Structure formats: structure tokens, C-alpha cells
């Protein structure tokens, strides 16, 4: 059941979680999940360390399965495990999980609706310094084209820690998309409520500009707003979009955008991701909205460090700030 849940904010927990990047936070969170769901198994493709899963592996060796560098087998064998009644998370680097094993994802999570949770590590431009073989700017476009799959892209490590056990409880085919580097900027600074499909309000109470952000770049959006000062904050509302949950999310976004004349979307994926989804809703309501997006362009950039890559997509703090000023002035 996808009921509304409120997570009471804990400054201590948030600080502790956000010292870690999403990958390490994911690995640690699986330990808590195992306590709550004793039948949980974790499948991986030779990426236990990269996913922060070594503690899980050592604590629960009988519930940890490493199929080697074999992503297609990873998805299908974990799907078989879940289809026969088990609960499982399957994780490896996003490009290999989503693109190399694309058909297995489509068949198992989409076509057969098997409630397997798959976790894409270092999605987006996180590993730009390793080249585009290790980046994944196409995952949202692809997964959004498959019916049935819930997408969860955490805004910060604290949110992931709160949400992960609930995702296991939902028992839905789910893609967990982890972005960002070793340390994430805290996005949630107070209690938050989610219904697992709607955008979550983070900052600002203005109605001139709606800022929609997905993943850990939301931290850059907050920094940009804070540096612009209160005169801008009064004009802007920042929402994060951690869940992309089919028609429910589209409908929630549709209702939200009606209240604004300017919208800026921030997304590390290509045009087929959140930006395209928002654009479609604008078209549907035929609303005269001044619409802009800072996203990965439709070509492969010259690679480099994550921050450098984000700056090229205007997804760093400065780029977001400049876009806001452009839209409002």
C-alpha cells in the first residue's frame, strides 16, 4: 500500500547519514532492512565494495549472492528468487544494470511485474572521470518507457535511509537510482512526508518559479537558492522529485505546475527523463509556462570529474543560479 508516510527529522541521523555518499548509505541501510525483513537477500555482480555491501556480505553470507560480472544473470536470477516468494535487492553500476541488462529489466520488472528491487550505483554523471562507459544518463529515459516500474532517486543519504525499508515493504518492481559522489549535500532539513509519487516541497514559498529537481543535484539547487538570498526565495518554490511512479506522478506534477508561470527542471539524465515528463504535462494542460531545463545535453560531453560534468550541464550551483536569474529577470 502506498500510503502517506511522514518521517520525523533527526538532525543527528541526517548528519550521520549524509557524511556518506548514497552508495555507502545504501549498503549500510541494507543491514537495517535485513533486521526488519529477515528473508531479504542481496544479489550483486562483483560490486559488493562499490555498493557498500561488504558489511552485509560478512554479516549475512547466506543471504548474499554474487553472480560475478554477469548483469543479465544478476537480474534474471534475482527475479527468479523473488518470483518464488523471496525478497531481493540486486545492485551493480547503473549503466551495466540498466543498459547491458535492459531486456532482463524489461521482462522481469516490466512484463512479468516481478517485485524485484534493482539498484543502479553511480548513475548520471557521477563517474565522469572514468568516461561515459561508467556514466548513465539514459537510465531514466529507458525505465520511464517501461510500464510498471517505480523509480526512486534519493535526494540525500538520509532520505534513502528512511525510504529503503518502505520500498521493500511496498513489494513493487522498483529501480533505485543512486547519484552523487562520496559526500552528499543535505536536502532534508526538517520532517518530510511522501506518498511515493508526489514531488516533495523543500524550500521557498514563492509562486513565480517552480524548481523541480531529481537526485543529489537537489543539494546544488538548495545552495543556489541560499546564495541568491531571501528576495529570490520569496519568488521560488523548490520541490524534489524522488519518485517517478507512472500516471500518479504525472498527475501530481500536472497539478503542481498549474500554479506557476516559470518552471526550471534539473536532471542529470538526457531529455527523455524528468524534463520530458514535465514538458509533456505542460503540453497537456496547454498552459503558457516559461519552461527551461538544465539537463544533460543530447550528445556526449568531454568527460571529467563529477563537478566538472555538472558545470557543463549547468547543474552545478553557479549554473542553477544563473538559470534562475535568467528566468526571473
Amino acid at each position, binding site marked *: 500500500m502506498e500510503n502517506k508516510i511522514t518521517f520525523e527529522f533527526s538532525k543527528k541521523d541526517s548528519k550521520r547519514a549524509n557524511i556518506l555518499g548514497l552508495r555507502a548509505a545504501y549498503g549500510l541501510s541494507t543491514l537495517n532492512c535485513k533486521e526488519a525483513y529477515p528473508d531479504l537477500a542481496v544479489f550483486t555482480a562483483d560490486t559488493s565494495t562499490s555498493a557498500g555491501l561488504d558489511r552485509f556480505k560478512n554479516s549475512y553470507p547466506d543471504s548474499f*549472492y554474487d553472480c*560475478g560480472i*554477469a548483469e*543479465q544473470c544478476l537480474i*534474471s536470477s534475482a527475479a527468479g528468487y523473488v*518470483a518464488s516468494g523471496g525478497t531481493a535487492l540486486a545492485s551493480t553500476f547503473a549503466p551495466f544494470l540498466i543498459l547491458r541488462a535492459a531486456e532482463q529489466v524489461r521482462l522481469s520488472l516490466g512484463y*512479468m511485474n516481478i517485485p524485484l528491487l534493482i539498484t543502479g550505483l553511480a548513475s548520471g554523471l557521477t563517474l565522469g572521470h572514468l568516461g561515459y562507459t561508467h556514466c548513465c544518463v539514459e537510465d531514466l529515459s529507458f525505465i520511464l518507457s517501461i510500464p510498471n516500474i517505480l523509480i526512486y532517486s534519493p535526494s540525500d543519504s538520509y532520505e534513502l535511509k528512511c525510504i529503503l525499508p518502505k520500498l521493500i515493504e511496498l513489494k513493487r518492481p522498483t529501480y533505485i537510482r543512486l547519484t552523487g559522489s562520496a559526500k552528499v549535500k543535505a536536502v532534508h532539513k526538517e520532517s518530510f512526508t511522501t506518498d511515493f509519487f508526489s514531488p516533495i516541497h523543500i524550500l521557498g514559498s514563492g509562486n513565480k518559479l517552480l524548481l523541480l529537481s531529481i537526485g543529489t543535484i537537489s543539494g546544488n539547487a538548495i545552495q543556489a537558492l541560499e546564495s541568491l538570498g531571501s528576495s529570490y526565495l520569496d519568488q521560488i518554490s523548490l520541490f524534489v522529485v524522488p519518485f517517478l511512479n507512472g500516471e500518479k506522478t504525472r498527475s501530481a506534477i500536472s497539478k503542481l505546475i498549474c500554479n506557476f508561470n516559470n518552471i526550471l527542471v534539473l536532471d542529470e539524465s538526457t531529455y527523455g527523463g524528468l524534463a520530458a515528463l514535465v514538458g509533456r504535462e505542460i503540453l497537456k494542460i496547454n498552459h503558457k509556462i516559461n519552461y527551461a531545463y538544465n539537463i544533460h545535453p543530447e550528445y556526449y560531453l568531454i568527460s571529467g570529474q563529477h563537478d566538472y560534468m555538472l558545470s557543463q550541464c549547468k547543474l552545478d550551483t553557479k549554473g542553477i543560479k544563473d538559470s534562475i536569474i535568467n528566468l526571473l529577470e
Partner: protein
Amino acid sequence: MIRQIDWREFNSKVELLRSTCLRIAVAGGDNAAHIGGALSCIDFIAIADSIYNFSSNAKSMQSLILSKGHACLAIYALLATSKITTIDEIIESFEKNGSRFLGHPCKHQDLGIMYSTGSLGNGLAYAVGQALHESKFKKDEASKTPIVCIIGDGECNEGIVWETMEFISKLKLDNLIIFVDCNGWQQTQRCLYFKDDYKLLHMRFNTFNIDSYLIDGHDYDQINSVLNITSNKTKVILGKTIKGKGYELFENNNEWHHGILTKQHFDEIHSN
């Protein structure tokens, strides 16, 4: 539940399964049906079913996984001769709009079809996950029924087959049996492994810490004996078979890999 085979009834069971495959294929009409690859694995399916009683109910049927999904006629024939569904439902709906019986198996757990297969190689990995879960959590009498997965020799072209075999070599799955239907053909050509009479394929499987057997896939005694061997490893049975087995028109004639079988064909076959 493991049973002794009643050989007096067995021949008629196999004949019924073969002719039921053809009746369903005729019902497919112009949509055509994969005939050759279904008939080549009927003998194995019939013996495995006689031993493990898969077709007794949908739950048991879920332990039989047809990874070479194009051979669905074989599974549909088994269902048609069970109490899980009726031959009429299958014949009326095969490859028709809204059907539960399409040209490749679609997941319908109430029919005992656990996975949608047809995209080759995936069924084997599903079977491993299922065997893994059952070996861990199902310690009752039912767990004595192994997961039986049928793959094709052409299917062994797929990388996921070998990814999965490597995974199997790490796991101690004594509840998984893989039958490789070595009928020598794939859609447009002879299988690579046919050339050396499957010695290379057998060697290849032998590298994966499993028990493997190369047998005549139409020899009832050999199939029965291998299935009854006690082993603490995954069993891989390479059964050398004949594509289109049982009918002169189809045997080793790859034009019937996927073909339109008319009522006239059917009557001619059964008048001989």
C-alpha cells in the same frame, strides 16, 4: 513427489502429447507454430512428468521451466492432458486475441507457467533463482521435487546461459536439473555443437562444477536412469534429439522450425 514410471501406459502418454502438439499447431492457423523444437523435447518432458508429477496441479507445474519458450506446444500439450486446463481452451485460443496461450509461454501462475519465456537464455537464470529460494526456504516434502529447466542447443549461443552456468558453479544447487535439448538445429542453420556430436558442448558444461551427462534424448531408459541418479550438484543432461521427432514430415526438416500446419497435413499424418 517422485514416482516410478508405469511403462505400460507410457507409450500412449507420449503419443498423446505428440498428437496434441499437432492439434494445437493446427489451431494456430496462419500464425504458424514452432513444431520441430517442441517435438524434440516431448520424450524428456513426458518422463520428467511421469517421475515428478508436474502436471498434477499448477503449483507443481511451476517447477517445470521451459527456457526455450518457442517450444511451448510441448508445455501446452502437457497442460491439455492435465486437470489444470482443457484441450478445448487451448485449441480455441492458441495465438488468438486475449489468449493465455500465445506463441511463447506467458506468465500465468494459475496455469503453472511461472515465467514469460521466449527471449532465450533467461529461463535458465530464473530457474536458478527459483532453485536458490526453494533450497533455502522449502524444506518440506515438496522440496524433493527439483526445478527442471529445458534449454535448447541453439539457446546456448546466448551469453546469459554461460553467465548463469558460472553462477551455478558457485552455488550448491542439488535441486536443479537442466535438460539441453540437442536437436542439432536452430532457426536458420545447424547448431555449432552438432558438428562434433556434442563432445565440445559436453566438455564446456563439465567445466562448471556440475554433473553432466550426454545421452540419447529419446531413449527412455537413459533419461529415466539419469534423472534417478542421486547427486549433490546441479545436473545438466545433454539429450541428443531429433528435431520434429515422431513424424517423417518433420524429422530433421528445419522448414518446420516454425511452420503452418493445416488440417490436411494433420489428417495425412494420422492416416499413415
